[in-house]
């Protein structure tokens, strides 16, 4: 394939803008529906997300006093671009960049892209001169810190079981030694604990009358900047699911050579990740709202332990006991 055409196709059609936005819309609806069902609330209409984004986009973008409009714009733009880049550079099946420019992908780079949106959100929460958004930012920073460590360790452990960091070679036969499968399973479990934080969608509406204070770092963002963040969060869910499936799920189906079957595995796995994230959010928050939690919780410790166990297993797999 011609390199220029391949790059354009990848950016504009698949897995770029067109397909990514369609999948982002579909997964966002799945996510909100599962979340609402888990909480016993009415399920929203499929087009509600699009309507909300369009409304936000049409409204005036108010910049808080003393804050640079450029800084907010750059942050909101990066919130859209980073997950989109993660998808474009991921060697998804049929990605034109694979044939056009020999895209190989990189496990570390793909994972690093996932941190951009949460960091952009922290940035806008901090630069806004509001104690409420800064409180929300503090909470989000702690969440991210708790997720980044097991995520990094899990990616490291998984990477040690592959012959290279290239994402197009992680698909190894399913007949890998048991210790390697154990390593990947432990690493996947650790990474899975970070999924809800990486794919978190900001709550913009009051979900609890008893907690009227803004619980979002986007409390001072409005207009097209807010619309960009909402689109970015929808894309982030797709990117997070795609990276997780690429690194941890697809290798399990290494023996499957049929192209259609591989597409199907991708689609089902990505959908399953979105549903799992929504279920986790919907069911977990009910318990959290009722109890005071210490700063270091069981849920922070377990993913780190899982990731450390994965690292030990990876060392075992590479060098023996």
């Amino acid at each position, binding site marked *: 394939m011609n390199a220029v055409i391949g790059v354009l196709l990848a950016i504009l059609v698949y897995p770029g803008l067109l397909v990514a936005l369609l999948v982002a819309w579909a997964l966002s609806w799945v996510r909100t529906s599962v979340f609402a069902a888990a909480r016993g609330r*009415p399920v929203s209409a499929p087009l509600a997300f699009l*309507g909300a984004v*369009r*409304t936000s986009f049409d409204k005036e973008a*108010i910049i808080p006093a003393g804050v640079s409009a450029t800084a907010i714009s750059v942050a909101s733009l990066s919130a859209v671009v980073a997950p989109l880049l993660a998808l474009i550079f991921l060697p998804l099946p049929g990605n034109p960049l694979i044939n056009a420019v020999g895209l190989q992908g990189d496990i570390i780079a793909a994972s690093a892209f996932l941190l951009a949106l949460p960091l952009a959100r922290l940035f806008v929460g901090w630069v806004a001169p509001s104690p*409420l958004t800064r409180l929300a930012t503090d909470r989000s920073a702690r969440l991210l810190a708790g997720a980044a460590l097991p995520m990094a360790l899990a990616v490291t452990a998984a990477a040690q079981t592959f012959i290279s960091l290239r994402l197009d070679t992680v698909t190894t036969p399913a007949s890998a030694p048991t210790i390697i499968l154990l390593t990947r399973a432990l690493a996947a479990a650790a990474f899975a604990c970070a999924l809800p934080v990486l794919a978190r969608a900001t709550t*913009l*509406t*009051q979900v609890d009358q008893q907690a009227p204070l803004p619980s979002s770092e986007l409390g001072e963002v409005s207009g097209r900047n807010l619309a960009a963040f909402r689109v970015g969060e929808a894309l982030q869910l797709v990117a997070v699911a795609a990276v997780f499936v690429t690194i941890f799920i697809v290798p399990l189906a290494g023996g499957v050579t049929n192209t259609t079957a591989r597409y199907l595995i991708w689609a089902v796995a990505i959908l399953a990740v979105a549903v799992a994230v929504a279920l986790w959010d919907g069911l977990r928050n009910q318990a959290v709202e009722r109890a005071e939690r210490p700063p270091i919780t069981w849920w922070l410790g377990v993913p780190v332990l899982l990731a450390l166990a994965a690292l030990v297993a990876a060392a075992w797999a590479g060098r023996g006991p």
Partner: protein
Amino acid sequence: MADSENAEQARGTSRTPVAVFAIDSGGCGACVQSILALQSSRHAHALQAARVSFAQTPRHADVILISGPLTKGARESIARVINATPQQRALIAVGDCAIDGCVFANSPALGEGAATIFDVHVEIEGCPPAPLAILAAVGTARELLAAAEEEGVIEDTTEDETTPETNAQDGASEGSAEE
């Protein structure tokens, strides 16, 4: 106006989602209770059907609900909240107090009502108005916002737009409120 008519009016012809932010400038708190009742699980399906949600901050709101008699001291704070809401936005005066001060009208702490000072677009009479009457008014505001997208301005419709006569107090319950 019956509940079903209020719910129908809330849905309106436009399907655009609307985010509402409520502010109160004092009073007895009955209107606030009506607004809180609208957020209860009883009206969750009506809100969902009308695509209405309550925003966490004015920045994310399309419609501002103003309730209570506007005291001189609260005027500036309420104005700041309104100014923090991006255009296009619609203002709704909730209850008699916000419209003309109601039983507090002669208080020296009050000036003109919120409906006059802030030139609201929709007024809801009642002391307090029923939750579904508020939802119906939000539907009216949504229509104004939709029209404003085409024409560029939101016209003040307090003269001819809905002023639901449902009154939770008079009707003993919101469910029995009628015209």
